[in-house]
């Protein structure tokens, strides 16, 4: 049991210090404070179970974010899908019943929940909503969590090149959406559309071409 105590201490020292960062990522991934809390809870409990498999010399935050991301993809996406199916079924039910009481009663049930839901659907969330999941995840891991391309590639189980192109396109879309909202709110003036044909994003190709040039000269 000494081992258990030691494990708990180590876990608290190395992993639990990242709670705020993990919650931030979960908050932006789930786009809902309650789901974010559940996600962090589930992911950290999972991390604790597999703490022995954590390599002590590696980046703990990246390891935890991998678990958060995977848990999100596996559990929450599925839950969300089933909830959407359920919501659709309920909506259909309401419609066929021709009764509005259902909807009204549901709204009355949890005013706080409704409020919370509303408060997070701010401009940033609406902008994030527009991104494909992979783009959003890449942007969150890089711009919010400061992970390296390589760490993101390991988490998303894809090549570094793929990370870069997701990041590139995700940022373009997100920046454009944020500016759109800012324009709509009157914060900034609409810009002239910039040439989006920035070509492909490929650091390896750039390096290879450079090496080839240097080799031939």
């Amino acid at each position: 049991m000494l081992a258990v105590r030691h494990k708990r201490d180590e876990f608290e020292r190395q992993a639990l210090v990242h709670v705020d960062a993990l919650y931030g990522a979960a908050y932006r991934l789930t786009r809902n404070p309650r789901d974010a809390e559940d996600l962090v809870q589930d992911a950290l409990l999972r991390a604790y179970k597999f703490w022995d498999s954590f390599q002590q010399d590696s980046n703990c935050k990246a390891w935890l974010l991998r678990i958060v991301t995977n848990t999100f993809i596996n559990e929450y996406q599925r839950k969300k899908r089933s909830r959407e199916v359920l919501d659709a079924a309920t909506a259909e039910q309401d419609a066929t019943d021709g009764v509005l009481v259902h909807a009204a009663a549901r709204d009355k049930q949890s005013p706080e929940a409704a409020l919370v839901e509303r408060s997070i659907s701010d401009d940033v969330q609406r902008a994030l909503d527009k991104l494909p999941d992979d783009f959003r995840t890449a942007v969150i891991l890089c711009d919010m969590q400061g992970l390296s391309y390589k760490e993101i590639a390991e988490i998303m189980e894809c090549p570094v090149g793929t990370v870069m192109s997701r990041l590139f396109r995700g940022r373009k879309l997100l920046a454009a959406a944020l500016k759109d909202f800012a324009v709509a709110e009157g914060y900034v003036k609409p810009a002239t559309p910039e040439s989006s044909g920035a070509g492909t994003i490929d650091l390896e190709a750039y390096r290879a071409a450079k090496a080839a040039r240097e080799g031939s000269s």
Partner: protein
Amino acid sequence: MSLCKSIATVSMAYLDDELAAEERHELEAHLTECASCRAHLEADRADQDLIRHALVAPPAPELIRARLARSLDAADQAHGRAQRRRWSQYLLPGSAVLAAAAAPAVFVGVQAPSERAASTVAHEAVRHGTRSLPLEVQGASTGPWLRQHFEPSIEPPRFSEPGSTLIGARLLPRGINGKDGALLSYQVERAGSPFVLSVLVVRDVGDADLQDGRIVRINNRTLRVTESSGRPVVTYVDGSRMGYMFLAPELSVNELVWLVSRTELVGPQ
């Protein structure tokens, strides 16, 4: 210059600090002479700043930590059940180790001669209850565990002092005076310095078990106060003959009585 063609890639990698030192220097040199690439990099930087600023999320709610501690407790406990036989090696964290280890030195064999004959629960409790045995449960699951293993109706006493937390509990393997008992361990904060307070809970305590000690009436309830070498024990027996003995080597009698009077158990009715 070929850098111009690849500026989208290189600018992004530069801003993300993914370029090798040599690549970085090459780009920086190029930027001094290429206004178009400079503009590209500055536009990228502005976008990144916009995104980073927008993505800032609120900190985790305070309650999440308590909730996490509870589920980790439960995970530890599940693990502990699997390894019950190894409990004798169990150690408490931090100050609890100290207090649990210090307690026997304080209590065992310190009864004054006049008290030696009286085999009251308080003294038995002190003799048997304060040995540095491992806790069998810790954290928020302590209450449910006690109800399952000791007494279905027990509610661990709560101190209204801020900073008082229940660390955990264990059963008293041989009981006290032949009666079942459990030891509850608390961490209590006083003037910023935490100390450990133990509460021994013993079933079926009657008058015969309570022969010595001073009687103190607080909130219409009777407390018995005994001292061993200046170390106080405060005993309270509730309506269902459940005895609660409070021990805190660090406290004076008055301090301990005051603290006990601030529990829900003995607090104002």
